[in-house]
């Protein structure tokens, strides 16, 4: 048994959120630099130059990459052999975000009631938590603040069970074509195939945690990712939607078992400011 004090969890959340909002992960930065080399549109290259200059400015001046500081999504992997001591775990996760928001001068994005009383909670809480129990003594945390531009442009489609690869490709193309220009391209496209109405979107979101350029371990899905990337870039949307050859930096596919009568596909778009930061205790 391993004991972790939840104050350490709180401090890790705070550290990772502050890093996520001001520094792009190195894989995203490299992908943007590569995009600048391969983009054929002059307007698109100018946008990419500004995005790369923005990354330098945010890092140097310790200010957020984007004024939409996002709704904080936390992915936790907690070993079965871990016992927590100290304040409640959920409260510690919220407290980490609260402290990061105050100390990092983040814009507060969260309203507690979605429909009738859209009052800002003033501290970017409550956070969204996905907790997975794993064997052993591991404690892993990924902080993924997600802006609304990409979320508002994301889709869920219930395809017919034998629709096959062509139906999936059509659904992904349609999703990106319809809303991609408004989600701050170049995008990272997360595709969740299988599961059901709640897990397909979660698979799509989880796929965005994988570094840009990495492929699904299953060669069939790795090939599908490459095909989807080509299809999406063939749409011509380009950086900022001004037209170009780099609409997406990557497409990631994650899959799960599903019902015999269905083929759910969720497409979760992430803007070029793919802000994720990972740490362990």
């Amino acid at each position: 048994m391993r004991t972790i004090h939840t104050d350490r969890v709180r401090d890790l959340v705070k550290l990772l959120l502050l890093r996520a909002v001001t520094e792009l992960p190195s894989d995203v930065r490299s992908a943007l630099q590569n995009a600048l080399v391969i983009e054929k549109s002059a307007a698109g290259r100018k946008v990419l130059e500004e995005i790369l200059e923005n990354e330098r400015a945010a890092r140097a001046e310790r200010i957020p990459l984007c004024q939409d500081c996002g709704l904080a999504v936390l992915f936790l992997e907690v070993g079965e052999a871990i016992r927590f001591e100290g304040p409640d775990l959920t409260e510690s996760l919220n407290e980490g975000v609260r402290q990061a928001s105050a100390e990092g001068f983040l814009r507060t994005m969260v309203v507690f009631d979605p429909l009738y009383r859209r009052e800002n909670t003033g501290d970017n809480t409550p956070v969204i938590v996905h907790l997975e129990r794993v064997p052993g003594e591991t404690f892993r945390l990924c902080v993924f603040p997600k802006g609304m531009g990409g979320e508002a442009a994301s889709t869920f489609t219930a395809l017919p069970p034998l629709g096959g690869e062509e139906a999936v490709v059509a659904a992904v193309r349609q999703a990106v074509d319809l809303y991609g220009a408004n989600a701050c391209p170049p995008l990272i496209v997360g595709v969740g195939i299988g599961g059901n109405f709640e897990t397909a979107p979660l698979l799509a979101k989880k796929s965005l945690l994988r570094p840009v350029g990495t492929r699904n371990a299953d060669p069939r899905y790795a090939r599908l990712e490459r095909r989807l990337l080509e299809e999406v870039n063939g749409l011509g949307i380009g950086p900022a939607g001004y037209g170009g050859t780099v609409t997406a930096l990557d497409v990631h596919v994650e899959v799960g078992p599903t019902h015999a009568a269905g083929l759910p596909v969720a497409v979760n778009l992430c803007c070029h400011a793919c802000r994720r930061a990972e740490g362990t205790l």
Partner: protein
Amino acid sequence: MSPCLDSPLRISSPLTASALRDLTCGKRVLLSGPVLLAREAALRRMAQEIERGKALPFTPEGAVLFHGGFTPPPPGRKIGSIGPTTSLRMDPWTCPLLRAGVKGMIGKGKRSPKIVVAIRECGAVYFGATGGAAAFLSRSVRSVYPLLFGDLGSEEPYLLEVFELPLVVAIDAEGNDLFEQGQKKFIKGTNQKQNNGW
């Protein structure tokens, strides 16, 4: 040569009729002068004030609206990061403001077909600022003043003074739309609606 390869055009707000003539689709510009930062709640209020024949808290003739937001300033800075938000969300309240004389909007992403028509009919322009480049864009903001309606909380409009804010003409006064024209130039094959199996 693509207009984007040209050097950017320096313009200032409020926008005059002669300045508007040079603002063709795809042209890069550096905008200096006052701009009014406002989102849904503030734009809805402004549209209501116009409908009731009341005065706006700014002069609409030639004015430039900025669909965006900013983070709080850390000590020693006038502003945190500032950038555009999805302008499509502002479409429901855009027409009354254009009719009142607003000539420019700054934002990101496509506009609805109805707004492209309204932009042409009113002889206005829609500028794109790079989304998610808010630390970079903050360098072009000189000052920020709240322009109070008084009860909109975090949704109050702000008057900004910008200097050489880098923008692209995304929809011009003739209704040319960079999102449509740009995509057409780079799309591979036809973009027919594919069969998704149903």
